[in-house]
């Protein structure tokens, strides 16, 4: 049974070995495609291992001392394998593998040097993400949490000489770091009251009500802030759309399927703790639902195809968070998995399109369905899944969430999510109609991508269908939240009406988009300006942080140090004055000696005794 420990470790270790190899052996890295092959082989091995772990369904826990202390280790690292992490393992390795294969062609114009760097980052990311989901302690999770953030930063900034990419990378890091500040404070507070970072211990304590309730709400809220940053929840969602400056495969992997779901994973993982703080759960659900709607509304007015998908990701993450916040974490996690598959599909499909036409602007595409039929088909499959059309994967997971929300009696949230579902179907099919149908705008001769890119697309598309079919045939299997009978038709109607509206507006032309904009002017106005949040943060950053730092810097240089300089200037002036008594004439000094003698004498006469 030792294989139980070694297999997950192998899964974790292969990408790390690949990263190490590419990082410390520059000649290997500079081969470019060779580096890619190494990385792909490693992740493929990891994928097989993860499949093994997942399908065998075994659980295991191991810990090693990381930070020693007097009475037992202060922090440990290790691995925790249970169905939750096993499923994540499978998802991460699968999407990583496909994306890395896809990238081999997508980035074939890149110089070898850059490509090697790209694959090194990818290996590091795979390692970090796997480490994150295997974490048995909050601290380890935080460690890998930051590392995936680092990879995200590096990969967004892959084209670092583009100012927009540089800006987006830094922005992503800062905004998520802001959430992580809450996370780290939260886990330190939790450690302060319980003395451990360990999930198993903490959950056991939670079961036996040994965790002091005082301050727990605040603690968990702070931990949740980490998830807000990473999973792009309102109000820290602003970094995700900008993150689309990175290469598209990166967006597919990190900013759709894996890293951004870490927040959902966190809340799911720590569900037993969050259940102790209903207030925080309420906040999670409400913020999730609000984020879902907000992001969906922004997706409706976006013209950049990748940004549409990014907003859609934010919106779907909101869905998952709502579920997690309403104690329907299983449904949220289910959606996480299915969404990971079809969103990766959508991004890669979008990547193929962008690759073919060389622009991100949907209004400059059009009619590509004929030029690249395979891409169109898989993209539409993904879109249908996202819109929640049965029998595709998305339908079931979304229905599970809606069922959970309904069961919980949160009617307002249910309405918001239903509206979001409608908008989702609308904006996704808006994209489909604009890109694949209608009149062709693109110059040149766009055509389907080469097989290295097409292959992953097809695999993901097939998976999307297969998962859906499995649930269509096998049933939902979640008895905790039996869906009311009307829910399935209701969601289908929502989806279809969204599709219909999109068709009417962008295909048929029955409804003038501009007219609708005018009708919904305030919302349209705000959504196009991202509700002013980016401007607000930019202003706060400029005025508050930079302004304050400028002030402090000025004070330090010209006041704190200025006082010192005044003192030294006074000393210099004083010395200059005292210089005059140094006449250079021996006899004048002798007067000094004589006065000294007199002083001693006077002292003896009057003060001594």
């Amino acid at each position, binding site marked *: 049974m030792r294989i139980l420990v070694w297999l997950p470790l192998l899964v974790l270790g292969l990408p790390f070995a690949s990263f190490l190899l590419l990082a410390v052996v520059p000649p290997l890295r500079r081969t470019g495609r060779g580096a890619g092959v190494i990385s792909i082989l490693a992740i493929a091995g990891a994928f097989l291992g993860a499949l093994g772990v997942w399908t065998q369904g075994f659980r295991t826990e191991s810990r090693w001392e990381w930070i020693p202390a007097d009475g037992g280790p202060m922090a440990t690292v290790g691995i925790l394998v249970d169905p939750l992490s096993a499923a994540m393992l499978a998802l991460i390795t699968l999407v990583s593998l496909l994306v890395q294969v896809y990238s081999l062609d997508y980035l074939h114009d890149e110089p070898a040097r850059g490509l090697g760097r790209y694959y090194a980052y990818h290996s590091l990311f795979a390692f970090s993400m796997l480490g994150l989901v295997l974490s048995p302690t909050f601290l380890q999770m935080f460690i890998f949490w930051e590392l995936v953030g680092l990879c995200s930063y590096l990969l967004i900034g892959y084209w670092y000489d583009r100012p927009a990419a540089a800006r987006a990378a830094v922005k992503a890091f800062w905004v998520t770091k802001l959430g992580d500040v809450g996370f780290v404070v939260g886990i330190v507070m939790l450690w302060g009251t319980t003395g451990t970072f360990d999930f198993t211990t903490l959950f056991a304590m939670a079961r036996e009500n040994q965790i002091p309730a005082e301050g727990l709400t605040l603690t968990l809220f702070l931990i949740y802030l980490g998830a807000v940053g990473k999973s792009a929840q309102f109000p820290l969602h602003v970094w995700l759309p900008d993150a689309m400056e990175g290469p598209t495969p990166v967006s597919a992997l990190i900013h759709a399927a894996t890293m951004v779901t870490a927040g959902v994973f966190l809340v799911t993982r720590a569900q037993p703790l969050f259940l102790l703080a209903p207030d925080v759960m309420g906040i999670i659900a409400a913020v999730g639902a609000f984020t879902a709607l907000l992001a969906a509304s922004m997706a409706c007015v976006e013209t950049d195809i990748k940004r549409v998908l990014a907003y859609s990701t934010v919106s779907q993450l909101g869905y998952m968070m709502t579920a997690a916040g309403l104690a329907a974490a299983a449904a949220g996690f289910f959606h996480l998995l299915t969404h990971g598959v079809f969103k990766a599909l959508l991004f890669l499909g979008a990547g193929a399109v962008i690759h073919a036409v060389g622009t991100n602007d949907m209004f400059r595409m059009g009619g590509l369905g004929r030029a690249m039929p395979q891409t169109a088909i898989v993209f539409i499959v993904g879109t249908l899944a996202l819109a929640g059309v049965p029998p595709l994967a998305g339908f079931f997971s979304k229905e599970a969430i809606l069922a959970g929300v309904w069961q919980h009696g949160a009617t307002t949230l249910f309405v918001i999510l239903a509206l979001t579902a409608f908008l989702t179907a609308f904006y996704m099919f808006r994209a489909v109609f604009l890109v694949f149908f209608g009149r062709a705008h693109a110059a040149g001769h766009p055509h389907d991508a080469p097989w290295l890119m097409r292959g992953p697309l097809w695999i993901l598309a097939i998976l999307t269908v297969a998962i859906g079919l499995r649930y269509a045939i096998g049933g939902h299997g979640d008895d905790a939240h039996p869906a009311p009978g009307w829910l399935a038709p209701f969601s289908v109607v929502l989806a279809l009406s969204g599709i219909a509206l999109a068709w009417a507006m962008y295909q048929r032309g029955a409804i003038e988009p501009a007219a609708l904009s005018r009708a919904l002017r305030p919302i349209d106005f705000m959504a196009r300006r991202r509700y002013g949040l980016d401007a607000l943060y930019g202003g706060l950053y400029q005025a508050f942080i930079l302004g304050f730092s400028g002030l402090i810097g000025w004070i330090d240089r010209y006041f704190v140090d200025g006082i010192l300089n005044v003192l030294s200037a006074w000393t210099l002036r004083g010395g200059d004055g005292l210089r005059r008594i140094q006449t250079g004439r021996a006899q004048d000094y002798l*007067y000094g000696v*004589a*006065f000294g*003698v*007199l002083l001693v*004498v*006077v002292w*003896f*006469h009057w003060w001594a005794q």
Partner: protein
Amino acid sequence: MIVETVGFAVVAVVLLASSLAVVLTKNLFHAVLYLAAALVSTAGIFLLLASPFLFAVQLLLYAGGVVTIVVFAIMLTERLVGERIAQTSRDIVNGAIVAAAVLVAVIGFLVQAPAMTPPATAVAEQTVAIGKALVGPFAVPLELLGLLLVAALLGAVYFARAED
């Protein structure tokens, strides 16, 4: 007793007068001669204090040696300048005040000190006693003094050597 008092009075007056002359006279050469007189009268004081050996040393070394050297020095500088060295004083009032203040301060100690009477007899065989002390308990200082004198000699020779 009377002889001693009278002797002291005479010697003291000569000493003070010649000392004042040393610091007040304009002619440097005369000043040196007055210094010689002061040194000789000091030797007389030593005699009054029953120290014939020091009397001799003072006369030979000091009055003889030092004065000779100073005279040489004056003549050297005179030769170089080619004119008589007349010396002047400055800040006489300040100097007098400070010197007087120091005098008052020292006298202030004196008036507080108890009077002492000398032992009836002075040290017998004074010269022999000093000689024994110099090679006995004071041997090391004596050697160091010798070293110092050699160093001074070399230094003086070095400084005074002809320019090349």
